[in-house]
C-alpha cells in the first residue's frame, strides 16, 4: 500500500458519498481515489457508518404522548389569553377594549371607591378577600368595635424553618379558624401575597377545624407578612397572659432568624381551633389586632404598605385631573361657541327691540 496516511480532505470524501459536491470536486475525488488506497478505505468506512445508521429504525412516541400533548396544549391555550379562540377580530380585541375602558373608568372608580382614614387600610380589604369564607352576616371590619372584650385567643408558634425550600411554617391557634383565615387573607392582600394553596378540615358539624395556607410573597415583603402573622398571634396571646415572657423571647429569636433569611418567599400558615377557647372570636377581635398593630410597634414597612392605598387614590385623582385637563381645549371651544351664540342672540334681540 503506497499511502498509510493521507491529508486529502475527509469532508470532501464524506460529501462525495452523499453527492453533495460540485462537478469539479467530484472529479477531484474520483481522480484521487484511483491513486489512494487509504482514502478508498476511508470512504468505505464512511459508507459503512452511513449504512448502519440508515438501518436504525425510527422511534415512535409513547402511546400516551398525544393525549398528554393535547392536554398540555389546551392548558397552554387557557393560560395564554392571546392565543385563545378563533373568534372574529373584534371579539379578539375585546380584552384590549376592556383594558382601555378600565383605564378610562379608573378615575371615576377612584372618586367613588371607599376612602378610609390614614392608617386604617391594613385590614380594609377584609370584606373582599374573605367573602368566600366569612359568614354572610359577618360585621364589616370598618365598623367593628375595637374594644378588646372577647375571651378568644390566638397563639402563634413557628413550626419549622425549611432553609432548603426557603419556606417556613407558622401555626396560629385561633378560636375561629374561619375568621382567622379571613384575617390572614386580608393581611396577605396588604402585601400582595398570593395564596398558592389552601386546605381546610371540617368537623362533623360543619365547623372549620383547621386550615393551611401557603402564601407566596416577594422576598421584600416577606418580613412584613411574617411579622403581621406573628403579631396576630402574639398580641392576642399577651392579652390572655399565657407565658408571655418565654413566648416573646422565642419570637425575638425567630424574628432574628427571619431577618437573616430575608430571601424567603413562601410562608405556610396553619390555623387550628384551640380547645381551651371559650367564646367565639369576633371580627372585632381581628380589628383589635389591626388597631394594636397600628398603634404600638407597627413596622414602618407595614405603614408604607398601608399608605399604598392612599397613593393609589392619589394617582386616581391626578389621573382624573389630567383627563379633564386634556379636554380643556374642547371645553373652551364649546364654551366660546355657547357664549358667542348667546351674545349673537342677545345682540339680535337688542337690534329687534331697537
Amino acid at each position: 500500500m503506497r499511502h498509510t496516511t493521507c491529508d486529502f480532505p475527509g469532508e470532501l470524501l464524506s460529501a462525495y458519498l452523499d453527492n453533495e459536491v460540485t462537478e469539479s470536486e467530484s472529479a477531484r475525488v474520483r481522480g484521487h481515489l484511483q491513486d489512494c488506497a487509504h482514502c478508498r478505505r476511508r470512504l468505505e468506512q464512511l459508507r459503512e457508518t452511513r449504512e448502519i445508521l440508515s438501518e436504525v429504525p425510527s422511534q415512535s412516541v409513547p402511546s400516551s404522548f398525544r393525549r398528554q400533548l393535547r392536554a398540555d396544549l389546551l392548558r397552554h391555550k387557557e393560560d395564554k389569553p392571546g392565543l385563545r379562540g378563533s373568534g372574529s377580530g373584534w371579539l379578539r380585541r375585546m380584552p384590549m377594549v376592556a383594558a382601555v375602558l378600565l383605564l378610562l373608568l379608573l378615575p371615576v372608580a377612584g372618586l367613588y371607591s371607599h376612602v378610609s382614614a390614614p392608617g386604617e387600610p391594613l385590614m380594609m380589604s377584609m370584606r373582599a378577600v374573605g367573602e368566600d369564607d366569612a359568614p354572610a352576616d359577618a360585621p364589616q371590619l370598618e365598623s367593628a368595635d375595637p374594644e378588646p372584650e372577647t375571651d378568644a385567643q390566638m397563639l402563634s408558634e413557628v413550626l419549622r424553618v425549611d432553609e432548603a425550600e426557603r419556606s417556613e411554617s407558622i401555626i396560629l391557634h385561633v378560636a375561629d379558624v374561619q375568621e382567622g383565615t379571613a384575617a390572614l387573607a386580608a393581611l396577605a392582600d396588604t402585601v400582595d401575597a398570593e395564596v398558592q394553596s389552601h386546605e381546610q378540615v371540617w368537623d362533623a358539624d360543619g365547623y372549620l377545624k383547621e386550615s393551611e395556607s401557603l402564601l407566596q410573597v416577594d422576598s421584600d415583603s416577606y418580613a412584613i407578612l411574617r411579622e403581621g402573622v406573628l403579631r396576630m398571634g402574639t398580641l392576642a396571646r399577651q392579652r390572655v397572659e399565657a407565658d408571655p415572657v418565654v413566648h416573646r423571647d422565642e419570637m425575638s429569636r425567630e424574628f432574628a432568624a427571619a431577618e437573616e433569611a430575608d430571601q424567603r418567599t413562601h410562608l405556610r400558615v396553619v390555623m387550628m381551633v384551640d380547645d381551651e377557647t371559650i367564646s367565639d372570636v369576633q371580627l372585632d377581635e381581628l380589628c383589635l389586632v389591626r388597631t394594636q398593630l397600628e398603634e404600638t410597634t407597627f413596622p414602618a414597612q407595614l405603614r408604607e404598605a398601608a399608605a399604598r392605598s392612599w397613593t393609589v387614590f392619589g394617582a386616581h385623582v391626578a389621573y382624573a385631573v389630567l383627563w379633564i385637563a386634556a379636554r380643556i381645549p374642547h371645553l373652551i371651544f364649546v364654551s366660546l361657541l355657547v357664549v358667542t351664540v348667546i351674545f349673537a342672540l342677545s345682540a339680535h334681540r337688542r337690534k329687534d327691540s331697537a
Partner: protein
Amino acid sequence: MRECTSGAASVILNSDEMSLKGTRGKSVDEQRMLSLAREGEVAAFEALIEGYEDKIYSLAFRMLGNSEDARDAAQETLLKAYSGLQRFRGDASFSTWIYRIAKNVCLDILRRRSKQRTYSLDEPMELGDGEVSRQFAGDMPAPEDVVMHGEVRDSINSALAEISEHHRVVIILRDIEGFTYEEIANILEIELGTVKSRLYRARASLHEILSEMELFRDRAVGQSEGGDDG
C-alpha cells in the same frame, strides 16, 4: 372541528416534503390551517404537526439517549412551537423551523445535564481498598452486552452518546433523518462547510467507536470503491 381540520391537514401533510415550505407553495388550506393554529386552535395545530411527533421524538431520543428525556424534549418542542407560531413567518420551511426548536430544546437539556453531572467519566473512584473505575448506571447498556445480544440499535445509541453533541446532531439529521446538507445548515444555523466538516468528523468518530464494539466484524469491508451512489 377536528374532523374538518384533519381532512384539510391530510392534504397538507401527506406530501412528505411538506408543502409548507416557503410562502410561494402554500395552498389556501395550508394558510388557513396555519392561521387557525396561530390563533390557538389546538386541532389545527395538531393537524400541522401530524407526523412530526415521531420524528422529533426520534431525534430527541438519539440526542438524549433515553425515552424519558426524549418524551420531555418532544413535548417541550411542540409546546414551544405552538406558543411561538406567531413568530413563524414562513421564511424557512415549517419542518426546518420545528426541527430548529427541537435541536435547541435538546441542547438545553444536555447543557442542564452536564451541569448536574460534574464528574469525569474516566476519573477513578476512591473506594475503601483502592481505586476502581467509575461505573454509571445509565440508559445505555454496556457495549459487550449489546453485541452479545445483537442489539445493534442500542449499541449505535451508545456510540452516538460518545461523540460531541454538535457532531451527533449533524449525523442524526443526515444519516438517520435524511435531511439534505442545506436543510441541516438551516436547522442548525451554521455554514454549509461546517455541516460537511462536522458530518465527516462525526462519521469517522462513530466508525471508530463502532469498530471497537466489533459491530462491523461481520460486514464486508473494502469491497466497493468510489462514491457513485450519492
